[in-house]
């Protein structure tokens, strides 16, 4: 017990110890901002991987670590699409995942946001044109917000998400 307390004291607060996002500021589409209004202060996200290389997922996971701690902005990850306000989709949509993506979209209660995370989700990236890829996310479900990058840094993701929540990532 003593060891654990000592470790915690020694470590201190690490939240916010990351370089600020340097990604060019793209303001969020007003329509999306309007749609995001009900989710101010609390945004529950369901992550859907439709064929990514898993780096984008790792960065989403990193958002939940103590350094970025997205929960301090009221951003949480849900285990089921039925609990979600927003879907974060990563990866080009593969033929095998197309159905699953559409299903998840249907399962998510309205109003909902769809966020395409990473170049793959936005324009298929490296996998464009392949016989097994049926096109970017917005070919299958309407996309409200796009976060480019391969993969985008957690700070970039956080910046967009906090803006949707009506807050600013300042530390």
């Amino acid at each position, binding site marked *: 017990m003593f*060891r*654990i307390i000592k*470790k915690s004291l020694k*470590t201190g607060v*690490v939240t916010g110890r*990351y*370089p600020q996002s340097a990604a060019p500021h793209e303001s969020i589409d007003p329509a999306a901002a309007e749609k995001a209004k009900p989710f101010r202060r609390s945004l529950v996200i369901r*992550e*859907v*991987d*439709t*064929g*990514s*290389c*898993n*780096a*984008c*997922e*790792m*960065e*989403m*996971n*990193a958002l*939940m*670590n*103590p*350094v*970025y701690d997205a929960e301090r902005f009221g951003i949480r*990850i849900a*285990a*089921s*699409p039925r609990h979600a306000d927003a879907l974060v989709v990563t*990866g*080009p949509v*593969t*033929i*095998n*995942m197309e159905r*699953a993506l559409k299903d*998840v979209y249907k399962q998510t209660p309205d109003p909902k946001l769809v966020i395409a995370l990473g170049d793959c989700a936005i324009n298929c*990236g*490296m*996998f464009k*044109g*392949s*016989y*097994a*890829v*049926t*096109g970017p996310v917005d070919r299958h479900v309407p996309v409200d917000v796009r976060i480019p990058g*391969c*993969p985008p*840094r957690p700070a970039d993701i956080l910046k967009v998400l906090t803006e949707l929540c009506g807050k600013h990532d300042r530390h």
Partner: protein
Amino acid sequence: MAGPESHAAMLKAEFPSLVQIEGGGGGFSRFLVQKESLPAVAQYLHHHQKWQSRLALLWAVDDRPMREGASLHYLFALDNVRQWVVLSIELEGDDRLFPSITPHIHAAQWYEREIRDMFGLIPVGHPDLRRLVRHEHWPKGTHPLQKGFPWNEVLGRQQGNYRFLHIEGEGVFEVPVGPIHAGIIEPGHFRFSVAGEPIMQLELRHFWKHRGVEKLFEQRTLTDAVPLAERISGDTTVGHSLAYCQAVETLIGLEVPRRGRFLRSLFLELERLHNHVGDVGAICNDTAYSLPHAHCGRLKEQVMQLNDRLTGSRFLRGVNRVGGVTVDLTPNQLTEIPKELDRLEQDFSELESIIAANSSLIDRLETTGVLTTRTARDHAVVGVVGRASGLDYDLRRDRPFAAYGELAVKVAMYHYGDVRARMRVRMDEIHESIRLVKQLCATMPTGPIAAEPRLNSRLPKTPKAGEWALSAVEGWRGEILYMVMAGENETIHRCKVRDPSFVNWPAIQWAVVGNIIPDFPLINKSFNLSYAGNDL
């Protein structure tokens, strides 16, 4: 240790009809085998006591237009003598049948099903001919890796059902899980058959993320496919790109300068470090002990930020290129890295003692998800999972690449094969990686970081169409294998990628038997296999 001649001599004495073929880059001996005698030769090679051999890779090539027909190649790793042997068979013209070796060599099972799906060649005698890569909705007769198949025509859909294996009986339930899971993880389908709590059977249904990577390689040239290799499994960016670059370098006869090789090893170890640290935390988290998870998340972030400062990418993207590396480190950075890692090691060691002191955690990990040495060997399991089950191989020591020929790597080994053993392999490897990085920084030679000529200019040697090379890298998950075959004009005729996940996934089906479903996430996490690298 026996010389390379001896196994070749033994094989030839046993099977006089074998033809040894010269050439082929990557350090192995190669034999052309008659199709009919393949199972016998393969069995002899695989079962002979002396060699401890395992089937490391099995791939097919559509040889058109060079030759009418397809060919299959079986790579056996003779671990006792540290030699590789490739057996090749050639199918003539429209011949689509090849003998299955799965009944005798279990490790071939997924490879042969994959070849059937991708090439339309049929493994005669395979006990399970269901589709593997092609999901049931892919139209009949679509075999993407056949040369005539257009790479950019999106597949149509048909109706179809996949037949899962059923266990029938009173009180037996099936629990389907996935493809979309609860956490932020990749898609895959798991089907459990349970009677009461314990799992009787698990069947995997993967390949949801199949993106057609191997076909995409064929649309690129030898030197410009590195970014694609990096994106096969994002967490193994360096491992995959390094394996790819090495294969191409062998093919075009390019020697990587010493500093380039040292930097490659350094980046590979940094990648191992951040992934292993994250995994240790995640294993603890899956037993609902979230304190180490928080600490490990912080430490992992620290390494990734270090990566970012050193190379401009948290995942070390764009670091490798054919001929060497793209990023050099300044003397300042080379003194900074060991200092930072010293602090990290201190931090991590404290955390380790917190983890070890938690008896309820350790109790949960011990004897959970046991993969026995026997099962591991039958599946030819590699990497962390293999080393936790008593399979003592690590390419860094056994087939040194990059700078490992000049480093003594201590290989972490455990025999219990449970979750705890897998966690301890990772913990040991974290310390070893830190030691290696420090040593690499201290002994970093001067000189160029990459071989000239620069990209896109003339290559030192243009490989003939049909020439191929193998390369192997010990990534953080385990052995990554690449086979790159050149086409006309520096294009890629075929690139076979094998992530360690592809061989380790089937083994997980056996590790969970007898455990309860709530322990499955924990066991799965302790394997931590890539879905993207498996599905390609």
